[in-house]
């Protein structure tokens, strides 16, 4: 299994798009903390921001584009046409002739993705929180380790969500567009929470409850419940994607 995970890591790092996901995802949150610093300082001074417990953690939401890209391309790169000379040919053929046991292959892929995204999340969370500490140290204190762990878990589960959806769609463009718009432009999930409280249990909304305290939120959900609900979403989608991947002809 170690050899399969190693191969999947090499495969991922050999793609230029993966590096876009890695760099964007890692730098976005610390950069936002830095750019927002003057505004944040003024807001604290003016008293419009009283609860600073989410400083450095809230910004992690913008970095989510990183794990989303990584999760999607982990699968979609297998289905991309290898070129105009042979439009039907895809890397997946090579992958499955090299590793024909599909269950082991998916386990290796999932493990590789979790390793990369968890490491990325740990780096970016540390960077964003340290910056917030340096810039606004008088008004904020390092959050508890459990909250940071919650944020890392949220990133990892988001990547797995994107990965599972792409396993089902076998194409990266639709899920990536939807996920990025939903997280960065107009949050459909958030709008739905205005319609029904049930939307609070959508994976992206509920997941943020694992580590954020001050977000506008319709129902009270504990961090532990939030983690379990998001994990259940991811597990269900992964199960569907896994079964389809196992059954389909290439």
């Amino acid at each position, binding site marked *: 299994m170690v*050899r*399969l995970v*190693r*191969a*999947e890591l*090499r*495969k991922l790092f*050999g*793609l*230029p*798009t993966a590096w876009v996901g890695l760099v964007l995802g890692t730098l976005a949150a610390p950069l936002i903390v830095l750019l927002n610093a003057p505004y944040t300082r003024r807001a604290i001074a003016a008293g419009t921001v009283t609860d600073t417990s989410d400083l450095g953690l809230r910004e992690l939401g913008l970095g989510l584009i990183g794990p989303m890209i990584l999760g999607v391309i982990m699968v979609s*790169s297998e289905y*991309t*046409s*290898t*070129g105009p*000379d*042979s439009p*039907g*040919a895809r*890397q997946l*053929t*090579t*992958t*499955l*002739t*090299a*590793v*024909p*046991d599909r269950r082991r292959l998916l386990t290796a892929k999932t493990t590789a993705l979790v390793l990369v995204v968890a490491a990325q999340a740990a780096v970016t969370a540390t960077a964003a929180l340290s910056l917030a500490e340096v810039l606004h140290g008088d008004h904020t204190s390092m959050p508890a380790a459990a909250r940071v762990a919650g944020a890392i878990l949220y990133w990892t589960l988001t990547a797995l969500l994107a990965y599972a959806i792409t396993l089902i769609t076998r194409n990266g463009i639709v899920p990536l567009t939807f996920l990025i718009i939903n997280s960065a432009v107009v949050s459909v999930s958030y709008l739905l929470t205005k319609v029904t409280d049930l939307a609070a249990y959508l994976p992206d909304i509920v997941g943020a409850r694992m580590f954020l305290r001050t977000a506008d939120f319709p129902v009270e959900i504990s961090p532990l419940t939030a983690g379990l609900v998001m994990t259940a979403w991811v597990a269900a989608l992964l199960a569907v994607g896994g079964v389809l991947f196992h059954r389909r*002809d*290439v």
Partner: protein
Amino acid sequence: MITIDRVSKTKSRTQILYDVSFEARPGRVTGFLGPNGAGKTSTLRILLGLDRPQSGTALICGRPYRKLDRPLTTVGALLDGSGAHRARKARAHLRWVAASNGLPDSRVDEVLEIVGLTGAARKRAGRFSLGMSRRLGLATALLGDPEVLVLDEPVNGLDPAGIRWIREFLKDSAAQGRTVLLSSHLMGELAEIADDVIVIDKGRVVIQGRLAEVTGGHRTLEDAFLALTAADSGGSW
């Protein structure tokens, strides 16, 4: 040794293979001949565990492909295209494939050398010409120094020098005791290198045997082939 036993396959409600059975033996080049759409690629994909048959079995050295651990050390396969993601550099492609089967990185440089792509190792696969893509695909197939080679239309896109090279390469491989199965719709090409020939048409094997047996009373393999498949095809090529 490759054993295909009564393989049938239906795709989108159309039956594309009917009880296909044949063997490819070690030390021989076996040609799998048929017009486009006859079922050659479908048969090879089932052999490689990529697609599932409705019935029948396809075995390599007595085992289904999906049961092989580190399959590249037993079977080298070349299907359509290079098999590499187009944004990936040739060497990076070969390196992950090597890692997946526990093969050393040094082998990557060896196969690049064998297929003559050493100079293009750092080029992205998407920028390769058709001939270079085929060479990269072949390099991938050779990584594990396999005893069985399965090649789908290997000469497609190769220039005359490349065709001559692959012909010699396959002959040498068989002479060393390897099992070589290659499909083609080019009869002239197969007549040059095949020891045994299987002719497939509309999903059914119409004849198989030694090259001389299949050619039979006909002047060339081409004549034999046309006689065998012309009954109602009306010249689909």
